[in-house]
């Protein structure tokens, strides 16, 4: 991991700025997400204040910064709480797909043979399906046992990304399997499980962080699309931007702009930021694409040294 960060630090040119801008915007969203209870004036499902209903579809003003929507929600509060939901789902879905996809990929690549063939074939078949369709099917299946909360949404999205980790890790494993260090381990009498866990794992997970950040942007898009179609997180569970946008469709047809503009802008900003982080990481952490920054080498000047000692 140390070399990973050093690689980023040593990069020069555009890639650093892309990464920096992406990280800063993402951090802002994380801060808002963490501080949501203090930053948002209302709760995510709060429609009343001191017993009186909030106004319906009030335009943006000093009291309601982004206005209110047709469900009597304060849009600014919904946007802030939505950041929390978005990050929760992204983290959860990434963790689950890595935890399932990576070991499966290592096992498939290492064991090989029919086991590998079948897994690759099934994987490719799933991968060829439209990703949103797959997510819809899973949310359809999970709605019964899990309801319409963060967990169900994250798991539905996970189904889309497991094949990607599987594919990348499996391919790296296949080439690493024949490497000298694996042969050495085998010669020393290491069991297959030990080889996979101790020798292969550390070497094949290098590509996962970059893929993870690129997927994070995509996962957010999928979450919002699910929410927009009505199969994502239900409004009483948490605030979700995609759902808010679908509620505001009729308002848009009527020319009311604030219920769609603000959740949409938040969504695009976070997707773009995560994409920038992914692209930036890809260009800085990938030695093939990286352009190194040349550190000036400072030679000690002899006369100076001599003067100092005098």
């Amino acid at each position, binding site marked *: 991991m140390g070399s990973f960060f050093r690689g980023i630090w040593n990069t020069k040119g555009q890639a650093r700025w892309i990464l920096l801008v992406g990280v800063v915007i993402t951090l802002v969203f994380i801060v808002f997400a963490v501080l949501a209870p203090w930053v948002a004036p209302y709760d995510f499902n709060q429609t009343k204040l001191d017993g009186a209903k909030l106004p319906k579809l009030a335009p943006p003003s000093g009291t309601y910064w982004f206005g209110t929507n047709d469900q009597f929600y304060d849009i600014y509060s919904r946007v802030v709480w939505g950041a929390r939901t978005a990050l929760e789902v992204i983290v959860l879905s990434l963790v689950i797909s890595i935890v399932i996809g990576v070991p499966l990929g290592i096992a498939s690549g290492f064991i090989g043979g029919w086991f590998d063939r079948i897994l690759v074939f*099934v994987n490719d*078949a799933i991968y060829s*399906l439209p990703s949103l369709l797959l997510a*819809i099917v899973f949310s359809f299946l999970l709605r019964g046992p899990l309801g319409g909360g963060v967990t169900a949404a994250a798991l539905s999205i996970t189904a889309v990304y497991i094949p990607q980790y599987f594919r990348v890790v499996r391919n790296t494993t296949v080439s690493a399997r024949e490497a000298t260090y694996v042969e050495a381990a085998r010669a020393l009498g290491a069991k297959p499980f030990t080889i996979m866990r101790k020798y292969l794992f550390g070497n094949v997970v290098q590509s996962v962080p970059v893929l993870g950040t690129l997927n994070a942007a995509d996962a957010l*898009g999928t979450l919002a699309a699910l929410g*927009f179609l009505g*199969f994502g997180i239900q409004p009483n569970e948490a605030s979700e931007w995609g759902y808010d946008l679908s509620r505001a469709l009729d308002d*848009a047809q009527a020319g009311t702009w604030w219920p769609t503009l603000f959740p949409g802008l938040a969504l695009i900003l976070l997707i773009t930021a995560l994409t920038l982080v992914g692209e930036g990481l890809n260009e800085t952490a990938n030695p093939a694409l990286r352009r190194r920054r040349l550190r000036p080498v400072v030679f000690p000047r002899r006369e100076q040294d001599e003067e100092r000692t005098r």
Partner: protein
Amino acid sequence: MSSASGSLPRYILVRLALVLPMMWVLLTVVFILLRVAPGDPVSAAVGGKLNQEALDARRATLGLDRPLITQYLDYLGNVAHLDFGKTISDNRPVLDIIKDQGGATLTLTLGAFLVAMVIGLPLGRLAGRYRDTSADAAIRVFGVVTYAAPIFWTGIMFVLLVVKLFPGWPTNDIASVVTKFEVTPKSHILLFDAALEGNGSAVSDILKHHVLPCLTLGLLLSGVIIRLVRINVIQAMKGDYVEAARARGISERRVVRYHAFRNALVPVITVIGLQVAITLSGALVTERTFNWPGLGTELIQYVTARDYIAVQGLVTFFALIVVVVSVFVDILTALVDPRVRY
């Protein structure tokens, strides 16, 4: 396969032979997901409305009380006959749904491809020819933004703009009520039917309704095309044949248009084939945004109604489309570019 003679018929045969296992795996995956997974289709769709006996009777008529392996073989056999089952919630054959609403999805996606081409090809060529200039940078940013923006948000922003700037321009559905009433469905492709009847006002009404949805979906796809054409033009411009063309004294304009650009187009066909899955995902969302009466809208309704058979049938159909189009595109690429055949 590397030792093959490289004949076109052989390539096509090999490619077609790979279709069946691919389809079989897809169908099996769909079946496992929707049938073997826990959850009872009948009580999910109509539970609460009927008593236990009636539920059991429904299960028996649908064949859901039989062993899974029988159901599985039946399912494969039925799909081979293009029978996707009958919906549980309203007892409608899924094939009828596909016939009735498929046309709207078809014209939407074809229109979107057209838009993507019209926007993507010239912009990609421009960016490739004037590489690393400000025009190139602007076009690349445009490509990234159109691809990153969620399609429904792009759609909503279009609606807001049109509602403010051109009041009266249609912003949802495929046609006005009058047009739908006038045109008798034959092929169920509304635009085609209206044209057959020679109903000019209906045709223009339907075309007007297509503009916003096709533009929205097309913009998403154009980003991919821009990126691809740009890179291919840059590579083609380095080719020996481009150098040779220049040496013969052909104007730079002709060199770009007839020598570099033509060759840059071949990979575009392949990638368009790969975009089918993305296009279908995009079409689902576009249809919801514009209240478009297509297959996406149907799927959304049946998912909401928790109708297992309908969802299974429609998902199966989408999977078939993806496989068929990818084979078709592979064969087309081989026809255009002899280097591909193996």
